[in-house]
């Protein structure tokens, strides 16, 4: 019979909490960088010249069909072998996750851009706005509201993906679990607590996002 002993887990609870915080921060930074990539690629795909469209589509299709772990390994192990080595493991992971999320966010923003009614953009052009002005004052704000729920879901997915950072020894929550496990061998306790921490964080974020969505909801 398994003997439960929670002490080792709670003695190291700060390790887990710091890991949780690091995971959330990495997800947030990746979402920010990924959104920039996604925005650029979405405009390239919808309004860019033909070669730009092809490049953006190739990026989206390639990244969406390749495992995140492979991208992480390529950036962390592959780039230094090719002579690019200026990142620690945390930034290397953030860059990987940003590249990965950028492909999904491209589709999110593209759907958002396409959902903005033609009447809106045509009206803006008719009153003499330039294409850049239309993008900035009409398409972007409307698209942001349409894309907000999908952005929120992407953030939660990215937060769960930060568990893969443990593969390159980034001290986030899953890595904390591995560390405690190695030092104390309290397997069941550690993974129960860590699983619950992930669950609680995911549902807390989901709840916050729902409130945010209600505030920015479109009045139609």
């Amino acid at each position, binding site marked *: 019979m*398994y003997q439960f002993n929670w002490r080792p887990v709670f003695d190291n609870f700060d390790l887990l909490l710091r890991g949780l915080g690091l995971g959330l921060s990495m997800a947030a930074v990746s979402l920010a960088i990924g959104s920039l990539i996604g925005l650029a690629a979405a405009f390239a795909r919808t309004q860019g010249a033909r070669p730009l469209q092809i490049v953006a589509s190739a990026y989206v*299709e*390639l990244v*969406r*069909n*390749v*495992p*995140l*772990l*492979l991208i992480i*390994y*390529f950036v962390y*192990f*592959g*780039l230094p*072998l*090719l002579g690019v080595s200026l990142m620690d493991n945390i930034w290397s992971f953030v860059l990987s996750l940003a590249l990965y999320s950028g492909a999904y966010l491209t589709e999110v923003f593209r759907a958002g851009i396409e959902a903005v009614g033609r009447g809106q953009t045509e009206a803006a052009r008719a009153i003499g706005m330039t294409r850049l002005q239309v993008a900035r004052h009409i398409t972007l704000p409307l698209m942001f509201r349409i894309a907000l729920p999908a952005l929120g879901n992407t953030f939660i997915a990215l937060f*769960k*993906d930060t*568990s*893969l950072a*443990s*593969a390159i020894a980034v001290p986030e929550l*899953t890595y904390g*679990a*591995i560390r405690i*496990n190695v030092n104390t*061998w309290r*397997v*069941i306790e550690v*993974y129960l607590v*860590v*699983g619950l921490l*992930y*669950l609680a964080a*995911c*549902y807390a974020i989901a709840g916050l996002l729902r409130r945010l969505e209600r505030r920015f909801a479109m009045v139609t």
Partner: protein
Amino acid sequence: MMELVLASFPLIARGLLVTILVSVAVLLLGTLFGIGGGLALLYGARPLRWLVRIYVDALRGIPQLVLIFAIFYGFPALGLQVSAIFAGVLALALFCGAHVSEIIRGGVESIARGQVDAGKAIGLSFVQRLRHVIVPQALRRILPAWVNTAVEIVKSSSLVSLVSVVDLTMAIQQVVGRTREALLFYAVAATLYFAINFTLSIMGRRLENRFAHA
């Protein structure tokens, strides 16, 4: 150098085979879990429905990697010896099952209530309604979403390399470590994953188009 590169291909081929086998096993098992879970969510008695709801919501809020570690390290602690590949397949299948449960529930609930009532009115039994009214229509919504899940599972199968299963990702890591040819071999791995998943995606899109006009 060339010899090293050539000598790596059998290892990569074996890794590819493991990736395909793990993905197929996860999808088969996960789809079975999902059919059971979906039916329980739709037609189960209240306590069963709640249990399955907890399973589905819990598994969607925990990273797949944590599930794999929990089973791989947790089962032996409880006195059950499991191989790495078994732990990986079981963890991913549980995750897959949660997603498929929701896909099936959503697909069936999207069918207009009147259809089921009409079936009842002309005297069809529950099983007959399922077979002739619900399944043919729900399948149109379920299949494209299922294909998306399949793509995600092929990608997730790379996580089994973290419990030291030599799948495609692990094979590539070993080969890159040995040959230091990063660009070539990461490109090979990306191409192989892409080939599998792009084929799946195209099949999914075909299904979608076919059913959209049916």
